[in-house]
């Protein structure tokens, strides 16, 4: 064989070997097994945010399962993406703080539930469709039951999606103050109770079709949101975008079909944005 041809074949073989090596390295990284490198669940949501600018992003999704969402490896449960919700096997641990003397676990009730409601940490929010959240299921045996009394199987089912940081778009249809509850140490002041904000998919829809999102005193302390602002958004029916933590509230099954479409909530909500003049504007910046 001529020398130049041998060199060409050798070059192709080396190129193929490098390509195979790159694929293996990517696969290992994708499973979160390379310490020291940014984890896939950090990097991929950011890539997803760029995907609208990448022609043929759909082709990439075909080649890489779950592109734009997080991997489900290292999970003992049968996690799989629901709609456009990622199956995150590892989720950020809730960070809490004592607020006005009230600890993250509240003053009684279900302390595990209260710690989730009172979290204050920000997340890498993943864009989720309204339907993906509204369509999440749950085992009926968890309804009206404190978490310490859930079966391991039920807890695993809820844990599959609870704690995913999400961003969801829609329209506001109601905004009300909650009553005193153990989460907020039964305080009665306006600034110490949650606000229930009902989000629907389409303008003018009834609360029965809403996902309940909630603002908490700890988060509102960092914003200048008012109930009046939220009610103005209900009147104007401007599109809103809410970011926060996906959370399951087992306490209100009899509100289904009346005040909500699901027991899954965005709670606490960490950011509220309004689509105005062709761009998303933080509600804080509209004051």
């Amino acid at each position, binding site marked *: 064989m001529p020398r130049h041809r041998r060199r060409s074949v050798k070059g192709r073989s080396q190129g193929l070997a490098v390509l195979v090596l790159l694929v293996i390295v990517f696969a290992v990284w994708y499973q979160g097994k390379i310490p020291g490198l940014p984890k896939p669940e950090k990097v991929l949501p950011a890539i997803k945010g760029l995907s609208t600018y990448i022609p043929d992003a759909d082709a990439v999704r075909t080649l890489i399962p779950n592109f734009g969402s997080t991997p489900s490896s290292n999970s003992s449960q049968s996690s799989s993406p629901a709609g456009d919700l990622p199956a995150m096997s590892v989720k950020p641990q809730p960070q809490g703080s004592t607020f*006005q*003397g*009230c*600890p993250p676990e509240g*003053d*009684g*009730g279900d302390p595990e539930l209260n710690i989730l409601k009172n979290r204050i940490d920000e997340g890498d929010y993943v864009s989720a469709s309204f339907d993906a959240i509204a369509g999440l299921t749950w085992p009926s045996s968890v309804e009206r039951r404190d978490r310490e009394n859930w079966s391991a199987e039920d807890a695993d089912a809820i844990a599959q999606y609870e704690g995913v940081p999400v961003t969801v778009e829609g329209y506001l249809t*109601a905004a*009300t*103050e*909650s*009553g*005193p*509850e*153990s989460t907020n*140490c*039964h*305080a*009665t002041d306006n600034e110490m109770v949650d606000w*229930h904000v*009902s989000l629907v998919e389409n303008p003018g829809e009834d*609360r029965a079709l809403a996902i309940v999102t909630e603002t908490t005193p700890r988060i509102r302390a960092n914003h200048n949101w008012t109930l009046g602002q939220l009610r103005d958004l209900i009147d104007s029916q401007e599109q809103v975008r809410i970011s926060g933590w996906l959370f399951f509230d087992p*306490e*209100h099954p*009899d*509100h289904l079909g009346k*005040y909500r479409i699901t027991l899954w909530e965005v709670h606490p909500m960490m950011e509220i944005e309004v689509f105005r003049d062709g761009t998303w504007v933080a509600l804080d910046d509209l004051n």
Partner: protein
Amino acid sequence: MHKGIRLKLKVWVEGDAEPAQDFAAYTIDAIQKMLAAGRDLYPQLQVEVRFIEEDRDWDDSEKFEA
């Protein structure tokens, strides 16, 4: 005639307490003692409190009245 009845109560309780104090346990205990303290007013009635628990199911349509 010997009679019996099952009554439903809806009680609102408020007052000052330390933030982290278990307010539900505290107020449930208080209501049980208040009911017990009033039994002597009606010795002809036997009153048995079956259960008292916090009503966590706030109806979003009702504004709580403190």
